[in-house]
């Protein structure tokens, strides 16, 4: 012991850290303290162990590394006295977690302490084990814990019960060892033991069907009686919470009854009376009472059908919803969402109130209410609800607009009764919150507009008006620019006027004004500007009188620093100047975009489009009985209830997918990859479709440039466009040779394309592996010039409704193959296809051409904390890999 040690006391250290003015200063103080603690640790200085550990915990809480302190915890735990152990265990629980290997070293000390004669030391060990035990420790120490369930002191029994919960969750196989003693705990009088015993039984039922059966048979009646006693018990000051005796025990009993009653009519019958009593008699003016009612409603909803009780439950929720306390309203919204599966009519009755909640000042309530409204929408109320939501969009908070917009778009797409309504609503959303609209949504809108030939004039006039008012809504501007480019003449000539329209007069030069404003507006990005250029090119053909002015605007971009714009401007200018003869053919209106191929593509590649709610929405009965005759509804029904991912062969990777489709549709030209790397290829592509064979080169180029793996944001339209054309392979040489477009494409020899074609010969995507829970799809590509090696991109989709964690994919191949695995994109796989994991593999086939690929796979993951292993062999690889 050194009385002159430079060690500071804990309080002094905290004071010193508090006094720091800057981050650097704080770091310096912490560094100095850590150095002293280290020195003290290596000197084995017994007098300061407590203080050191206390300091370390404080430093840890500030976010600094404290690994060197872990061994100190272990030493203190191994010390004989209670004070040492107490602080040692505290440090252990804070500084370590189950994932650290050091933890294994403590198993032996824990075992000794669990057998200690001092019950407080036993309590400490149980607490630590319950909080941070790993699966291995759980297995090693389960017998001790099991024994402690029978310990004389109830305070140890209750700790042992909670510790057992951790053990059976870590190692579900051990559940059967605990069933008997757990059931015995239910007969105790001590509330702590009852509380934990009931909890243990609930968890046993969840991990083991046998335990569920056993407890259901032997304990249901006892539990009902117990709940009756608790409900009717007289005032007990020790457990009283605002007039209710032990609400915590109430809640746990109700929860266990829920598990027992679910799927079992007899058990459900047995608990009807007491549930009715709780539902009708519980005092609801205090939080504790409401917490019990909450649990009671949940239980009524999940046990077997009893209509009388359900009415009672729905009424309670109705009362909750009209409560003035925000907490209660939040809870009500949440529970109505679950109640919708049970009785959607009853929930519909509260629609007006729920809609009001969407406008609440509390973000949590707004969010819940919006999700609920989303579930309430059906064919009958969609117009009403959408109108209300769009009206609210105008005044909603900025941070809420994103969510709200996504939901409105999704509702409109899903339930739109007719195209004109769809277009009206979407344009309103774009005008209010265009910047929050996702790309695929406005792409879909363009597809719909393109298909509604009787509404072209109407739409373009509507957009013309809207874009004058909301210049800042980029997406609105884009859609307007596209429509003006395509249907600009209808704007000027007032073609196809509908009765509901106000007449407007627009001149050709007004129309060009819109485009000029858009291309020069400061908020316009590359995509918008590129779209403007195309629209201008198209108008130059339709409005001969403005041709010169248009040319001027186009020429202004000749010096653009953005390659894409510069190139377009130069090329378009040359079309206008030199190639009058093909210009009109080039600028023809786009043919109607193929809705079905777009919707498939979209559904296949963007499974999560229709919002994160999909997972839960899938099973809900709204939106059933959709008129399948209406092609629009069908097309846009991405969130279709039963088929979340209808296109199995399409994985998540848009890029490869696109490539595959493009190439198979007949790749004829190779070329300007290096110039086409912007996110706007799609537009060029669109153009190319409109102009038919003369520019077939464009879409092919597009395919290639995407194949290059540029980090562009690829517009979904591009793929759409190229598939819909289904172009026959044109002879490259003749086209290049004869076409007046040589100057656009000069310098790309045929040799290059042949090679490109060979290398990129399209390999179809395959579903490589599929089980009840999981689907794995593979996309293939080859690196140019290396026929032996194949890049495989595997996508994993979770078909179950539970998240998979610690997802690991392993693969093995025969000797003639070489395999290289890249790191996976994630190790967590969201539920219900709401995302995927991508894993890239590189396979080199030394017997290329003789043998085809074959692979064994093993997929391991954790589902509800249980290890799951799936294995399989993939032998359906496309030939020639």
């Amino acid at each position: 012991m050194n009385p002159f040690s430079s060690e500071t006391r804990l309080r002094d250290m905290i004071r010193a850290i508090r006094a720091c003015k800057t981050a650097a200063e704080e770091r310096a103080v912490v560094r100095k303290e850590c150095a002293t603690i280290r020195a003290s640790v290596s000197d084995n200085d017994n007098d300061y162990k407590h203080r050191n550990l206390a300091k370390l915990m404080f430093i840890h809480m500030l976010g600094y590394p404290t690994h060197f302190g872990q061994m100190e915890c272990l030493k203190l735990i191994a010390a004989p006295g209670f004070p040492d152990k107490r602080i040692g265990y505290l440090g252990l629980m804070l500084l370590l977690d189950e994932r650290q290997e050091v933890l294994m070293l403590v198993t032996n000390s824990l075992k000794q302490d669990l057998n200690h004669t001092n019950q407080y030391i036993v309590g400490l060990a149980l607490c630590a084990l319950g909080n941070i035990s790993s699966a291995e420790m759980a297995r090693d120490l389960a017998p001790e814990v099991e024994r402690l369930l029978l310990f004389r002191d109830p305070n140890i029994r209750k700790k042992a019960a909670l510790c057992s919960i951790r053990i059976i969750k870590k190692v579900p196989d051990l559940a059967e060892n605990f069933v008997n003693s757990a059931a015995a705990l239910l007969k105790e009088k001590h509330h702590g033991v009852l509380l934990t015993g009931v909890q243990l039984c609930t968890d046993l039922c969840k991990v083991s069907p046998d335990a569920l059966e056993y407890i259901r048979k032997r304990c249901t009646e006892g539990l009902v009686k117990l709940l009756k006693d608790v409900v009717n018990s007289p005032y007990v000051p020790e457990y009283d919470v605002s007039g209710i005796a032990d609400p915590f025990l109430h809640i746990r009993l109700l929860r266990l009854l829920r598990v027992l009653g679910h799927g079992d009519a007899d058990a459900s019958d047995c608990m009807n009376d007491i549930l009715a009593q709780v539902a009708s008699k519980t005092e609801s003016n205090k939080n504790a009472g409401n917490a019990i009612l909450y649990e009671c409603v949940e239980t009524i909803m999940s046990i077997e059908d009893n209509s009388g009780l359900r009415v009672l439950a729905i009424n309670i929720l109705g009362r909750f919803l009209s409560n003035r306390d925000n907490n209660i309203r939040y809870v009500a919204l949440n529970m109505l969402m679950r109640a919708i599966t049970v009785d959607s009519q009853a929930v519909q009755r509260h629609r007006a109130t729920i809609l009001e909640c969407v406008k609440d000042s509390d973000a949590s309530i707004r969010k819940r209410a919006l999700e609920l409204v989303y579930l309430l929408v059906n064919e009958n109320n969609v117009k009403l609800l959408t109108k209300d939501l769009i009206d609210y969009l105008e005044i909603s908070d900025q941070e809420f607009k994103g969510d709200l917009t996504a939901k409105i778009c999704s509702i409109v797409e899903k339930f739109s009764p007719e195209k004109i309504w769809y277009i009206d609503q979407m344009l309103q959303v774009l005008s209010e919150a265009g910047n929050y609209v996702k790309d695929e949504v406005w792409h879909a809108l363009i597809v719909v507009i393109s298909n509604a030939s009787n509404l072209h004039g109407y739409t373009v006039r509507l957009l013309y008006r809207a874009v004058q008012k909301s210049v800042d809504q980029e997406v609105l501007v884009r859609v307007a620019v596209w429509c003006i480019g395509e249907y600009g003449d209808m704007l000027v000539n007032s073609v196809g006027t509908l009765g509901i329209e106000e007449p407007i007069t627009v001149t050709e030069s007004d129309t060009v004004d819109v485009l000029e404003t858009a291309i020069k507006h400061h908020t316009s990005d590359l995509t918008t500007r590129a779209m403007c250029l195309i629209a201008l090119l198209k108008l130059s053909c339709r409005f001969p009188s403005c041709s010169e002015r248009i040319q001027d605007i186009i020429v202004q971009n000749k010096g653009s620093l953005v390659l894409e714009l510069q190139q377009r401007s130069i090329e378009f200018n040359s079309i206008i100047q030199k190639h009058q003869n093909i210009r009109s053919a080039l600028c023809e209106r786009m043919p109607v975009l193929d809705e079905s191929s777009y919707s498939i593509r979209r559904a296949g590649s963007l499974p999560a489009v229709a919002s994160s709610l999909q997972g839960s929405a899938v099973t809900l009965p709204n939106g059933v009985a959709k008129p399948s005759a209406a092609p629009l509804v069908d097309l846009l029904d991405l969130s279709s209830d039963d088929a979340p991912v209808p296109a199995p062969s399409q994985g998540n990777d848009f890029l490869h997918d696109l490539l595959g489709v493009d190439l198979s549709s007949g790749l004829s030209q190779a070329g300007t990859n290096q110039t086409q790397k912007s996110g706007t290829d799609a537009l060029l592509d669109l153009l190319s479709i409109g102009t038919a064979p003369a520019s077939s080169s464009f879409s092919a180029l597009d395919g290639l440039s995407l194949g290059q793996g540029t980090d562009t944001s690829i517009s979904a339209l591009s793929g759409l466009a190229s598939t819909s054309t289904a172009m026959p392979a044109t002879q490259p040489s003749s086209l290049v040779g004869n076409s007046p477009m040589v100057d656009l494409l000069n310098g790309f020899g045929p040799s290059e394309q042949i090679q490109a074609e060979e290398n990129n010969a399209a390999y179809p995507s395959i579903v490589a592996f599929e089980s009840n829970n999981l689907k794995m799809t593979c996309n293939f590509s080859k690196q140019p010039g290396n026929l032996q090696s194949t890049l495989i991109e595997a996508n994993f989709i979770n078909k179950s409704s539970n998240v998979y964690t610690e997802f690991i994919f392993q693969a093995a191949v025969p000797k003639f193959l070489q395999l290289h695995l890249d790191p996976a994109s994630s190790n967590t796989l969201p539920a219900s296809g709401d995302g995927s994991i991508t894993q890239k593999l590189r396979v080199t086939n030394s017997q290329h051409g003789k043998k085809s690929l074959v692979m064994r796979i093993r997929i391991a993951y954790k589902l509800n904390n249980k290890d799951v292993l799936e294995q399989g062999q993939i032998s359906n690889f496309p030939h020639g890999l």
Partner: protein
Amino acid sequence: MIPISRNNKNSGHLFPLIQRQILSPPLIIIIPSSKMIHFVLLISRQGKVRLTKWYSPYSQKERSKVIRELSSLILTRAPRLCNFVEWRGFKVVYKRYASLYFCMCINQDDNELEVLEIIHHYVEILDRYFGSAYFILDEILIAGELQESSKKTVARLVAAQDSLVEAAKEQANSVSFIISQATK
């Protein structure tokens, strides 16, 4: 044991953490789903952490991230709003007592009202028995589950253990003990 008050901002280490975050890929936080309470945080009104207790495994990096995200989410909420915030697919139930925010993270489908009641239960015991917040919490929750609904019992158990520690200290300071150590 860890004093509950501390004034300076933990912006001390905020900057390096943010820098690290930019460089490294976003952390994926995995929480096993069957637990009632995933963690307990006590945060002061100024955003300083007073107590952390983790019932699900988080690396230290993740812990700092969780704390940062939640304090910015919770401390900015206006009074009189509901006591629940949704966060990364979980719910955080919080309640302010004086200048301290008590936060507990639970699953989407857990009973929020009950957790509010648990927080209140904890606060009442802290109020009644002056001792380490950590030791009291360990007598209330194990493995994220409630272990005792009687405030009296919790207070009694913590007091008994505190007096064990006191007794050990006294013994260590007693003259006879020092002599016996010296002559060993």
